[in-house]
């Protein structure tokens, strides 16, 4: 085909690529460079070496605190989302009456945006805590569990859909064979079902881990980091470093680079780890 000439490249790839450069590629490269600079606007950048990175970790403990908070949040929410979603997928693939209705209900919260979700749960949690004389911002623990509950409420439906697709793909012949061989429910679950849905587990873990690390809107709306920045996650800390105080743009950018490397590293490690456990059917 005479596809390869430059005119067609410009028509087919041009618009997307230009938008991609302006929205992502150029800002990304500039971001990397600027993390080594001191700047207010971008045009007045002055190279300062690793100073921003050192400030990010040493000036105050905000960044490390939010890192620790984010990791703890990610662990709890990844476990809770995936365990419940997987259980629901198992229950909803047994041909029980009302399956479609249940699926509809469990998935619905996923479509609601993070800001709106945050305020919905603020109302619910404050309403419960009010009886004991607290509000969600009284203690960091409240905000922590609030975020985990919110995240679970939002993500369970999405992951459930992916797990359902995985479970439905298991050939019935294998399940039949396992039954004939006398495997019980537990044995079938661990020897057949879980190994067969490893691709779904891989993608669900990937999505929940990266989404937990990148959480921003929900964090902003639910607690905005209160009390005393104790429930501030990485993304919100970076945002506040950029826009909260003048003169810290470089530090914010350095934090953002560390954040990017961390997310990429976790994602790649996780993909590598679970992919190696997938079996070919």
């Amino acid at each position, binding site marked *: *085909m005479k*596809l*390869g000439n430059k005119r067609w490249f410009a028509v087919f*790839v041009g618009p*997307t690529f*230009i*938008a*991609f*450069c*302006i*929205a*992502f*590629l*150029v*800002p*990304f490269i500039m*971001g990397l460079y600027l993390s080594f600079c001191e700047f207010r606007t*971008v045009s007045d950048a002055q190279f300062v070496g690793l100073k921003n990175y050192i400030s990010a970790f040493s000036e105050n403990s905000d960044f490390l605190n939010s890192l620790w908070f984010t990791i703890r949040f990610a662990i709890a929410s990844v476990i809770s989302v995936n365990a419940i979603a997987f259980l*629901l997928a198992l*229950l909803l693939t*047994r041909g*029980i009456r*009302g399956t479609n209705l249940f*699926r*509809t*209900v*469990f*998935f*619905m*919260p996923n*479509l*609601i*945006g993070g*800001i*709106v979700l945050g305020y*919905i*749960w603020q*109302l*619910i949690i404050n*309403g419960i805590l*009010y009886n004991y004389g607290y509000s969600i911002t009284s203690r960091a623990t409240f905000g922590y569990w609030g975020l985990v509950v919110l995240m679970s*409420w939002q993500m369970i439906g*999405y992951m459930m*859909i*992916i797990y359902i697709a995985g479970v439905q793909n298991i050939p019935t012949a294998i399940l039949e064979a396992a039954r004939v061989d006398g495997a019980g429910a537990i044995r079938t679950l661990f020897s057949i079902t879980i190994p067969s849905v490893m691709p779904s587990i891989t*993608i669900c873990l990937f*999505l929940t881990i990266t989404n937990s690390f*990148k959480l*921003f*809107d929900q964090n*902003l709306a639910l607690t905005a980091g209160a009390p005393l920045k104790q429930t501030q996650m990485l*993304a919100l800390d970076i*945002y506040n470093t*950029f826009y909260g105080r003048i003169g810290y743009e470089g530090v914010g*950018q350095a934090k*953002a*680079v560390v*954040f*990017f490397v961390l*997310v990429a590293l976790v994602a790649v490690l996780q993909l590598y780890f679970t992919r190696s456990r997938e079996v070919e059917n």
Partner: protein
Amino acid sequence: MKKIKISNIFIFTFLLGLSVVFLIPIITVVSNSFKDRFSISQSPFVLPNSDTFVGVENYIKGIDDTGFISAFFWSLFITVTSVVIIVIFTAMTAWYITRVKTRLNNFLYYLFVFSMIVPFQMVMFTMSKIANTLRLDNPLGLIFIYLGFGAGLSVFIFSGFVKSIPISLEEAAIIDGCNVFSTFWLVVFPMLKPTAITVAILNTMWVWNDYLLPYLVIGSDYKTIPIAVQYLKGGYGSIDMGAMMAMLVLSIVPVVVFYLTCQKYIIKGVAAGAVKG
């Protein structure tokens, strides 16, 4: 046989209970949106009664304060236009770089894939400065930026599908005298339709709910729904809870309508998008 039935009843009851738990937050918000704003925070789980019921007052106040009507139409305009543009252009790009095997195209593919794992905070400051400099700080500019940001996932999903369709149809079309452009639109794109729906659904869910990107690029001049809701919070602790509840309900309604009308495609899209991922 009987044993199975009993366990099914047990499971059904469990799922029913869980469904109620899932719906309570939404029901609570709806019920509070009709209560006077001082009786919300303290007793959100009490239904409105003759003392606390205020009719649609909260809705009127909230719509006035936030400019919700215009926010709704901006959200609608930005989402629909962005999604259409993303689908058209990334389908073209994905097909081209998958079919024309050059080093550059291969490199572009990996660049698009790479962009998917980069968190927004990495580029938010520089991107919003560039958008300002290039005068993209308006709804049309925002749509262009969404094309750039949505490109990663969309190109990735389209490419995965293009790989699975036979090239012979395209070659036949070329021999029959189609040029490259008409080959794509008349032969390839119709085959890409199911994938296009997946891409459209995933991008709709993202763009409609996106808060930070539009906020940083165009600020409060053209509020979208998430920006309008966040705008209510305003200064320190001065939320009008009544107006907030009403706005939460109004934000949820379009989403629920969209979900109930396109449920089949959304569920399929989510499952298909994940397999490709």
